[in-house]
Structures are given as C-alpha cells and as structure tokens.
C-alpha cells in the first residue's frame, strides 16, 4: 500500500523553527511557517506524543526530551540526554563549579549542555578561574564526550581535588546511562 508523505516536510520545518527561536504557540508557529493551522496542530500533536516537543500550560512549544536525544544520538550516544539534564545540576551543586558536556568530533567541538555558577573569577584578588578539569564520559573512534568542570578562582587546592572526585563519579554515572551504539549501520 502506498504511504503518503504529506506533512513530513512540516516535521523538519517545525523542529527547525523550534530550534532557532524562542518558544511560541502553535498559532504563531503556523503563521511563521505559512502553513494551515489544522495541519500544524496535527503534526505538533504527533511530535508531542513522541516527546520531540513539549508544550507548557500557555501552549508555548519547546524542544522535548526526544529532541535532546536526537542531538546526543547524532554523536553516537544513546540515552544520555535525560541523565545529563538531571546530573549536571547535582554536580554543579556539589562542586560549586561551572559544568559543560563537551563533544570533540574530529576538529569540531560542540557544547551540548552546560550549567554555570556566577562569578568564577575573583574580583577582590583579580584571580582568574583555574584550568578546567576534564573527565571522559564516552568515547569511540572519532568522538569523545567529556565533562568539563571549571572551579571558582577562590577554590582551594583541596576543594579542587574533591571536585575532581565528584566529576569522576558523575562522569561514570553518565557513561552508564549511555548505551553504546550498534556497530553496523
């Protein structure tokens, strides 16, 4: 039986709009894309059911967890997005430091997630934040995901050592949440 492909183009256009602009309602989205409201609403409903978009009580559309999964899977990481969202805040609290999930792929570096603390440098002493600590979360032939932690300038050496232990633990927990991709495409 033939499958119609009507509306498929809408998926890409809607997600591209959601990725590039502030959250907006379905009506605004339909107006921006120049598409029929009914079609837009229908595609949004299906994307929402699959978790690619979320809608808040005011109907504002934003990327859902499955959209974050798309980004992680683009680097070969399956299932790490949810755990990253949950644990980066925990690590920021424990380490009192700014945290980034950085992906190195060939020559390209991408920051996929980050949580920050304010005031890394110390204005009183003029000290800059120390060099960041890295812990590997996941690696394959050409891709490496690392957790990068930048402590405050005021952090003592003992604190930074403790932060190092925190980072290693969280990186290990994240790596457990990532399923290695199947080898054969």
């Amino acid at each position, binding site marked *: 039986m033939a499958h119609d492909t009507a509306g498929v183009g809408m998926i890409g256009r809607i997600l591209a709009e959601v990725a590039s602009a502030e959250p907006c309602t379905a009506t605004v989205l339909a107006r921006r894309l120049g598409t029929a409201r009914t079609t837009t609403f229908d595609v949004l409903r299906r994307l929402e059911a699959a978790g690619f978009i979320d809608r808040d009580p005011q109907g504002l559309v934003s990327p859902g967890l499955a959209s974050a999964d*798309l980004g992680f899977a683009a680097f070969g990481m399956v299932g790490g997005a949810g755990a990253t969202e949950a644990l980066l805040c925990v690590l920021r609290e424990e380490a009192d430091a700014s945290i980034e999930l950085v992906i190195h792929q060939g020559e390209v570096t991408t920051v996929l997630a980050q949580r920050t603390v304010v005031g890394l440098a110390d204005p009183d002493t003029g000290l800059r934040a120390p060099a960041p600590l890295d812990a590997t979360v996941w690696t394959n032939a050409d891709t490496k995901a690392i957790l990068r932690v930048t402590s405050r300038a005021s952090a003592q050496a003992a604190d930074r050592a403790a932060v190092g232990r925190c980072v290693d633990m969280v990186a290990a927990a994240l790596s457990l949440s990532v399923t290695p991709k199947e080898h054969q495409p």
Partner: protein
Amino acid sequence: MSRRHQPGVDLAIRVLVRLIDCGGCRAAGRLGAELDIPRSTLFRISRILAETGLLTLSTRGVLALGPLGVQLAQRRDAMLRKEDAERGGIRPRPPARAPGIGDDLLRRPASIQTVDCTRFRRGPRYKVGFANAAIDSPWRTALVHSVEYGAVKHRRWISALSVRHAAHSAAQQSADIEALLDAGVDGLIVSAVSSTRIAPVLRDAERRGVPTILVDRGVPDEIPHVSFVTCDDHTIGARTALWLAEQLRGAGSIIVLPGLAAAEPAQRRLHEARRVFDGFPNIEILATEWTGWQSAEGRRIMRICLDRFGERIDGVWCDSGLQAVGSLKAFLSDRRRSGPVPPHTGGDLNLAYKLAIRHNVPLAAVDYPPAMGLRAVGVLLDALRGRTVPRRIDVATETVVTRPHATASIQPDLWADEHVRWDLPDDLILASGLGVSYDPRSFRIRYRGNRYNRSAADQPGGAPYGS
C-alpha cells in the same frame, strides 16, 4: 504481506526514533526492513527530512541524524538553564566548603542515580497533594509554607494543591494519601510518618501512575518513590558534633538532646554525632534524651539534667534549635549556676540564634532548610513532565557559628549575627527559601485549595480541596 497504512508524519517520527535508538545512523535497507517501510517511501521521507538538516543521506545509502538534532538539544539546554535560573538554582556566592565534598557523593550514591519519569508524563496543569507527617513545630509550619509557596510560584503548572496533616499517625497518613488519590491528584509529596506502614498505599499510587516525591522524612529503600528531597543529615550531625568536640578541646562532659525518636533524620544525625564523639575518648556523654523537637520538652529535660549533673555539663549537642532553645532557657533560668552557659549546637529557629548572641553562648548549627518543600514541588513537576530526575536531592545548607567561635575544622558560611533576624519573630525558621521578608505569623497565600488566603499550616487537618 500487506502493510498497514500510516500517515507519512508517523513514519517519519518512527524513522527518527529508530535512528535515536541505534546511535544516529543506519543503512537505509536495514532501517526500512526494521520499520517495515517500503524502500521508495523511506527514501522519499528521508530526502524531505534531509532538506531541513534532520537527516543526512550518504551516497552509500546510510541515513544519519543531521545537525538540526544538535541545535534542538542545545536549544532545550538553553531553556533548562533559564528554568534553572528562575528556580534559584544558581548560587549567588560560593559557600565555605565542608572538608571532603567529593566524599559526600561517595556516601550518597542515590544522588547520582537517576529516574526516568517518562511513564508519569502527562499534560499540564496538575493537581498536587501534600501528605504531611504533622504540624507540631515551627519547622513543620515553615515546610508547609514552603510547599504552598512552591505551588504559587509554579501556578502556571499547578491547578490545585491539597495539604493534609497526619498528626504523626501512620494510619491517618495512609487514609490521607488514599483520599488524595481518590480526589484525583496527579502527583504526591510525602513527608512520611512511618515508611513501612505507608508503603502499600504509595505502591498503589505508583500503580495508578501517580509519582511520589519524598520530602524531609522517609526511608527511601522502603517506600516506592521517584525522588527523595532532603538535606544531608550526616553533615548536620557530624559537623555540629565535631565543632562541639573541638570547642571543648576534646575533653568534657556533654548532654545529647536528639529530636524525635521516630523520625529518620533525627536517628541519622544522632548516629553521625555519636560516631564523631567516639573519636574523642575524653568526651563523656552524661545523658542522651529524646526531645521530640519540642522546646518545652528540651527545657524540662535540661532542668532534670541540671539537677542531676549541675556544673559538670560542659556542652549540649542538639540536632536542632527547636529543642536547643528549651535547653538554653533552662540554663539561663538556673540561678544555681555561676559560670557562663556552655556551648550548644542546633539552629533553624531564629530564637536559638537570638539567645546565643544575646547571652554570649558559643553555638554552631547547620540549618535543616524547609526550602526542601519548594524544591520538592519543582522535582514533582519535572517528574510529571516526563523528565529524568535524580533519585536523591540534597538541598544546600549553611554552617552558622557565633562570632568568634569557629574551630580548626568548622569554619562558618555565615556568622550567627549575619544570619539572625532581630526584626522578625522568635519562631521564624531560617533557610525557608521564602525570601527575606518571610514572617510565619503574617504569612498569607492564595492558591486553589485553600480559603481566605489562610495557610494549611493554620488548620489542624490541613487544606483539602474545596475546604
């Protein structure tokens, strides 16, 4: 074999989901076979998706996720950062660090475990129920205020809040939770009276798809729950005990006044304090008496201790200012004593700091923040939105010491004179997360579920819907 007709949109979504599951790329032939999609249809869909960067198509017939996915992930992260800032997750200044912070995580493995809440995902707005253990102390009043404030702060997401107090009765709390479930709550916040006795009703809640967030009290291993929002009792027990031992230069006789015997936080703090005191062979524990976190009980017990031990008491360890205030009052009203009031521990309550500063009593405390109520509301919303949440969340707290009584190991985040609120009532619980103008006596709040802007803390049974 006849293939079931599916709209192209659904097929495209299935393609994306499958590519996520298999790590971002797949040979077209294999993907088509796995999804039971004709090759021609798959190529047509893929070409359309590739136009916007959702997919890339290689000349060797391999489909891979494209750069748009990365942009979406980054946009979502930016949105979460904004939410994080709105929730007050970004600390304005560095705290003084407890020694061995990295080891705290080692001790609390649940903090780095996560729970996928996809099964609880539902559309807004949500009805929330709070089953509170009891309303019998200023701290518990502040906890209820904090939950209510959370419901108002997140009113975009929360349609109604119902609060019930169980008066320390497990049977009552089970009945409360059943009533909340029957009233159709979408999510529960529970401060558990007895973990074993309320476990069955919370298992029933989970079966109904209602997530439970434990706050303050509960044994996580015994209760079905999504996340446990608490404050590290180890830190409270160990740091205050270490301060007292160092304040006494490792030698002296002390009275130990823990909180409520039936409450797990009190047990954990006492355990940690004893462990620390065991490391000081010249510290003698004269008596250990449970106070129920009640000021009057703390005062009554300390009067008995003063009659019995008199001048031999060199220090008093309390896990909270709720009973420390009673002990301080007993010392201050004891006309037989000639020397100063010995060092005490235990904060939370404004009066504890006022008395310590006014009468030059060395005091150290690690506040147990009622702000965990506000945090629990946020975590419950995350669970209902299908997000992944940490299994355990420890709300940040601060070490407070009267000036100049810092010790070698215990340096304060705040001096007591910076923390105390002379302008606010004695029964104010600090670290409520409700802002600098929070006054428990004039606290008024409006949400769907209460009446006349009255807090559920002012009503013996709480504020069920429509009360």
